[in-house]
């Protein structure tokens, strides 16, 4: 669906993307993880032809990105973090504009609004919507066109947990319909639960890639089992045959409250590889 080889892009003297390779298969949810300023949005803008790149090759739908026709572009839904809606217009009026541009039947507007849970707010001006509802309106705008390829730039940034779950459900529905999803996020939980494959982007370079579980297992250096006993005591045992007897004994005695293996999360892998967090303390505080 998307193939990229050796993509490089600089702004003035600063390199924002350095030698990025991608191979995104049809029907998968691909997650690009990285902290703010890592180059995630720039990479989406390059792949979607909004930003000219200096070197490398990109193909979308098997064609170089510069040769995509109007019909090809109509099959690409793009929801960027900073994209606006027409504040004075109602949800329906907002969608009508894009239904007309994409040549989508007007009947799809109501379906798309119902799909994102905005059917009751369809006549409400966009300026009166909450942040979560605005995000869902933006999603309705891209879902309405039934895209084959969907770019979502931080779709859940700043949303409450309920709305976030709702958005996740919509993304998974798109995948079930055969849509390929390219998602950027700095939320590792989101990436773990949604993505078939993730790439970790730092300072414009992809530092590792693979299935989320696979990456976590790859960096499982500790190989420990952490046990919390009913007595309140914490035990850390080797993740191996040597600990099996002890674990079996504790289990048999009914002393175990919780038991976890110690494989890292995407967040800890990222910190290990870069020394940086995916989401800064400041971003967490203001989210």
């Amino acid at each position, binding site marked *: 669906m998307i193939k990229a080889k050796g993509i490089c892009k600089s702004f003035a003297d600063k390199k924002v993307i350095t030698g990025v390779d991608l191979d995104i298969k049809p029907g998968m949810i691909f997650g690009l993880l990285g902290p703010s300023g890592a180059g995630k949005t720039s990479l989406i803008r390059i792949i*979607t032809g909004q930003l000219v790149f200096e070197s490398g090759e990109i193909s979308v739908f098997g064609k170089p990105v510069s040769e995509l026709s109007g019909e090809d*572009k109509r099959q690409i839904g793009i929801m*960027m973090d900073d994209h*606006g809606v027409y504040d004075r217009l109602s949800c329906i009026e907002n969608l009508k504009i894009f239904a007309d*541009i994409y040549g989508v039947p007007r009947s799809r507007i109501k379906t798309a609004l119902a799909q994102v849970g905005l059917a009751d707010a369809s006549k409400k001006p966009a300026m009166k919507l909450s942040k979560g509802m605005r995000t869902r309106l933006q999603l309705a705008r891209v879902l309405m066109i039934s895209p084959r390829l969907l770019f979502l730039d931080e779709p859940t940034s700043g949303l409450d947990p309920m709305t976030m779950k709702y958005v996740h459900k919509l993304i998974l529905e798109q995948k079930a319909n055969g849509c390929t999803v390219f998602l950027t996020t700095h939320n590792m939980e989101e990436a773990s639960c949604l993505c078939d494959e993730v790439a970790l982007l730092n300072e414009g370079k992809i530092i590792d890639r693979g299935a989320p579980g696979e990456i976590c297992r790859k960096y499982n250096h500790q190989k420990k089992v952490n046990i919390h006993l009913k007595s309140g005591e914490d035990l850390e045992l080797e993740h191996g045959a040597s600990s099996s007897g002890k674990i079996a004994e504790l289990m048999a005695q009914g002393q175990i409250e919780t038991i976890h293996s110690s494989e890292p999360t995407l967040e800890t892998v990222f910190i290990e590889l870069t020394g940086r967090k995916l989401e800064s303390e400041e971003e967490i505080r203001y989210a």
Partner: protein
Amino acid sequence: MRNIWVIIKKQLADTIKNKPVLIQFVMYPVLTLIMENAVTIPDMPELFFTKLFSVMYMGMAPLTSVASIISEEKEKNTLRVLMMANVKPGEYLAGVGLYTWILCMAGAGVMATGFSAYQIPFYLAVMAIGFIISIAIGACIGVFASNQMTASSLFVPVMLVFSFVPMLAMFNDKIEKCARIFYTQQLREMLDLMTFDGLKIETPVVILINAILAITLFFIAFKRKGLE
């Protein structure tokens, strides 16, 4: 062509809810009707208020509206969404320009009600030319400015010069001499004559130079800033 029509429809839906822009289109036609019917001063030239407000209308409404619309879309990132939906910059600008021109011409139609039937085509032609040049200047400001605040600080002085200097020129010879370099002053003189007979060569030349300058500046702004 379809996208141009979509932009026009979008603007029409938005204008009804956008009072600052709506007032721009409605204010002078309404003022003209009120003043022409309510005020009578001895020895006042025929249709004095209509001609006065017409020049102000052509120098103000299209210029400020186009600059406001484009800069607002840039500021709120809705323009980027349109561009990504494969609306070409030319289609967007044509849609906004046509919408503004049509609404201004409708306003001019209201203002023309005082003229006799044979004068109306001449009046509307003069207004149409003025609107086109003002739209180009407004588009130039809208494209150049990155947000509404910058656009306002640019279009207010420009609009004041083009719409009010011809009025001041009526009372001061020195201002009148300076004002002759502006298309609005030349179009005001055409409205005073209400005929092509006796038209000085200076009038079409100045209007043409103003138009060329506005279009050139627009292309320079567009080349430098695009619609991002």
